[in-house]
């Protein structure tokens, strides 16, 4: 790309952006610069701060809630909301599409931006302008078509048409191809190239490194809320995927993990074989594709995978078919075939699953510690259907002390606890079911370093007591720090299984980013 002389060197400059949430610094002094008419990719691990940065840009986090400066087209911007940023031509297309499924394509394109005549909707203009936009994005659908009747790929195009209707100058796409098949992805990327050639600057956030290499002019890598560096794709030295990966993961490792020596070679506790799960709505899509994993007594097994790889889906479908449909495959626990059709059956078989989203799936936030602690094994303290409240209080108190949950007593409402302490209540709840195998999905997400260390200690103790622990995590250092063995998952398939000694962040990331055609059947 050549820089035109008349224009400033950068269309967008975000300088020294810092953004904090209670207890976490999400961005610290991030600098991000986009040249006019280029495709600029942002890479980084889950939680590195990519989406936060884009929310700062678009005004979702309004001016004043972050530090630093945003300059767009040579002017400093102080966006208070999305409307402000869109007024300037900055449009962000979110990962979860923001379309109204029951409205038509045309209605969605002009949502909040209606074509009016005398204060009423001008349908003729709405539909004719929509038609033109649809031609521009290469979508062959009638503007009257309801959005819910078209596929995800086409919905993505409607989003882009919507952005174009706002006279977009900078288009941000957050994981645009995550839910798309190869053809739709290819079409979308072609369209983005077309927009660039029209002079629209595009920012694309993606986990798919192959895709990024194919389309981006510049890559900025963000790690732990900081800019690591920028790579020029048209430079002298070709940029390889390995280079990107190294920048993405190359953080120094300190001893954030307790020392632990696992007893390997225990009995096989759980084996999942040939496990296939289809998406609950898009039933043709395989979310988990012939995956096989196992865990032994005393072992901590990790599952690594990027967002959308099917980690949570694999775990939840095994746990009493809590996710997906048309599930096939075998589960063996302690060598015996089991049918786990309900959560109760899974619990009875000795399985526990602590969700990645403890607020939504893990806890009853308006109830107290005591009730939450016993909620998955109420039978144990209520043999005839009547709860032994003394035992309940004793059990809850015992786990509160054991896990060092910071609360004055077990009558405290769980919603008032910090994230780390909530997670300890979740752990208590599942430890009280006395499982053989615990699946912990993102056990340390959103909690501070000190509490993380404590959680790791408890995970180690569980393994030492002869249980099998499966840890799903987006943080590779965490998996490398606590697991004995790590499976990698990419697009629903197991792409590898490395013992801790043979694994490092680069090797894992390589396996995690394998695309379908590369996977050896």
């Amino acid at each position, binding site marked *: 790309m050549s820089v035109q002389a008349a224009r400033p060197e950068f269309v967008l400059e975000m300088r020294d952006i810092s953004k904090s949430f209670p207890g976490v610094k999400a961005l610290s002094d991030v600098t991000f610069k986009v040249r006019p008419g280029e495709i600029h990719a942002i890479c980084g691990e889950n939680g590195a701060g990519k989406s936060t940065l884009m929310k700062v840009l678009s005004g979702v986090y309004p001016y004043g809630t972050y530090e630093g400066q945003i300059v767009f087209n040579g002017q400093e911007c102080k966006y208070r909301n999305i409307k402000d940023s869109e007024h300037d031509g900055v449009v962000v297309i979110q990962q979860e599409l923001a379309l109204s499924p029951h409205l038509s394509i045309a209605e969605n394109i002009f949502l909040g931006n209606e074509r009016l005549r005398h204060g009423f909707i001008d349908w003729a203009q709405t539909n004719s302008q929509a038609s033109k936009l649809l031609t521009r994005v290469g979508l062959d659908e009638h503007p009257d078509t309801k959005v819910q009747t078209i596929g995800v790929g086409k919905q993505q195009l409607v989003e882009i048409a919507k952005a174009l209707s706002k006279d977009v100058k900078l288009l941000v796409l957050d994981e645009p191809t995550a839910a798309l098949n190869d053809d739709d992805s290819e079409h979308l990327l072609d369209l983005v190239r077309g927009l660039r050639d029209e002079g629209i600057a595009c920012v694309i956030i993606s986990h798919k490194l192959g895709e990024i290499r194919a389309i981006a002019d510049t890559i900025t890598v963000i790690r732990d809320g900081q800019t690591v560096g920028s790579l020029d794709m048209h430079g002298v030295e070709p940029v390889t995927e390995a280079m990107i990966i190294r920048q993405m993961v190359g953080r120094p490792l300190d001893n954030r993990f307790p020392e632990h020596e696992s007893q390997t070679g225990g009995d096989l506790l759980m084996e999942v074989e040939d496990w296939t799960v289809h998406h609950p709505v898009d039933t043709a899509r395989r979310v988990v594709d012939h995956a096989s994993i196992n865990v032994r007594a005393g072992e901590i097994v990790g599952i690594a995978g990027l967002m959308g790889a099917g980690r949570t889906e694999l775990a939840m479908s095994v*746990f*009493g078919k*809590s996710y997906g449909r048309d599930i096939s495959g075998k589960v063996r626990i302690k060598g015996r075939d089991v049918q786990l059709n*309900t*959560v*109760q059956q*899974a*619990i009875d078989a000795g399985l526990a*699953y602590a*969700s990645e989203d403890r607020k*939504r*799936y*893990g*806890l*009853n*936030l*308006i*109830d*107290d510690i005591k*009730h939450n602690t016993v*909620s*998955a094994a*109420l*039978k144990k303290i*209520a043999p005839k*259907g*009547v*709860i032994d*409240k*003394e035992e309940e*209080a*004793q059990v809850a*108190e015992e786990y509160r002390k054991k896990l060092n949950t910071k609360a*004055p*007593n*077990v*009558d*405290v*409402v769980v*919603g*008032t606890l910090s994230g780390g302490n909530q997670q300890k209540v979740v752990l208590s*709840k599942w430890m009280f079911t006395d499982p053989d195998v615990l699946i912990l999905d993102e056990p340390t997400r959103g909690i501070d370093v000190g509490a993380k260390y404590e959680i790791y200690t408890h995970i180690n103790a569980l393994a030492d007591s002869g249980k099998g622990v499966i840890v799903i995590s987006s943080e590779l250092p965490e998996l490398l720090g606590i697991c004995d063995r790590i499976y990698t998952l990419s697009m629903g398939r197991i792409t590898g299984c490395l013992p801790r000694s043979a694994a490092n962040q680069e090797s894992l990331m390589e396996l995690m980013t394998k695309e379908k055609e590369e996977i050896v059947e």
Partner: protein
Amino acid sequence: MSTTPEVSASADVAPAAHRKVDMQQFGIMLALAIIVVLFEIMTGGRLLMADNVASLLQQNAYVIILALGMLMIIIAGHIDLSVGSVVALLGGIMAIAMINWNLPWPVACLLGIVAGLLVGAWQGFWVAYWGIPGFIVTLAGMLLFRGLAIVIVGQTIAGFPNGFVQVANGGMLGWFGFMGSMDIFTLLIGVVATVGFVFSQFRSRQRLLAHGLSVEPQGLFFGKLIAISVLVLAVGWILSLSSIGTPYVLVICGVLVLAYSFVMSNTVFGRNIYAIGGNIAAARLSGIDVRRSHFLMYVNMGFLAAIASIVTTSRSGAAVAAAGQNFELDAIAACFIGGAAVSGGVGRVVGTIIGALVMGVLNMGLSIMAVDAAWQQAIKGLVLLAAVAFDMLQKRRGAAA
């Protein structure tokens, strides 16, 4: 009165959420007291006359009975709009059984209960196994069962056996003789209830202390104990002067209230209802059979609708197709006045009973004052709104603190 252990925290360590709950309960009790005093003055002392208190209980027992089942459904995040129609239908069935088929009245009541369970199973089936929201299923039920009631009760059916009429009109009088004009048995019930209440409160407090759990400050505990004891004894004393002694419906309500307090706070079933209302996704992932709980709570509502129908039909001495009009609204209002949350997961039997008493005192006081029925309805509407607004205000203050 409930024997539920008080969940509360001592002042120095209590998190905000807990103080809020206590304040809420306290607020409703205060509101009831104010309403009682207000009407006592406005009716020139007639509200608390012995026979008026007895008929207040008899006339409004249905609110308490229905509210117990409604509370469960509201906690689980649903609603039941059909109970008024169901009361009418079941009243019709029992009346036909007694008058047309000449069945003994206890058998007719049993028949009514079975029919109630079937109605509940019908609605529970659609909610639990088809996933249709309770609002819609019971809206349909409201029309369906009212229609059926009109079909089977063409014209008023009256002339019930005396035993049946006595259920909601009679009481236990003179079993142990009299003391002056006071019925000794009624006084005794008041004393026994008070002793039982005080004993259970002490025991649960001791248990909490033994486990190092937080309890109310001592002053508040004794204050509450004395206030409620005085209240129970006063009601016993007033009723002992009434012409029927202890109304049978008081016994029915008392047993049900104790039973449902126990079910809601001490059984797996009750706990599951709270868990489902608090976070249905977490409940599912904890192995709770959500569908079964949904089904059973509607079956239970059918059972209570049958009991309410027995009481109402007995009270009026006749079955009419228009019986039970707006009963569902009274029961729902009682729950919300009593602190249940529209979003589910929150609500207690004690609060609901107080809510039901608020509705009852309003009904009775306004009737004694001969306020026009239309205005009675308007006033009840405003009280409901005021109670919930007050509740919101307290919650917002609690959140800000």
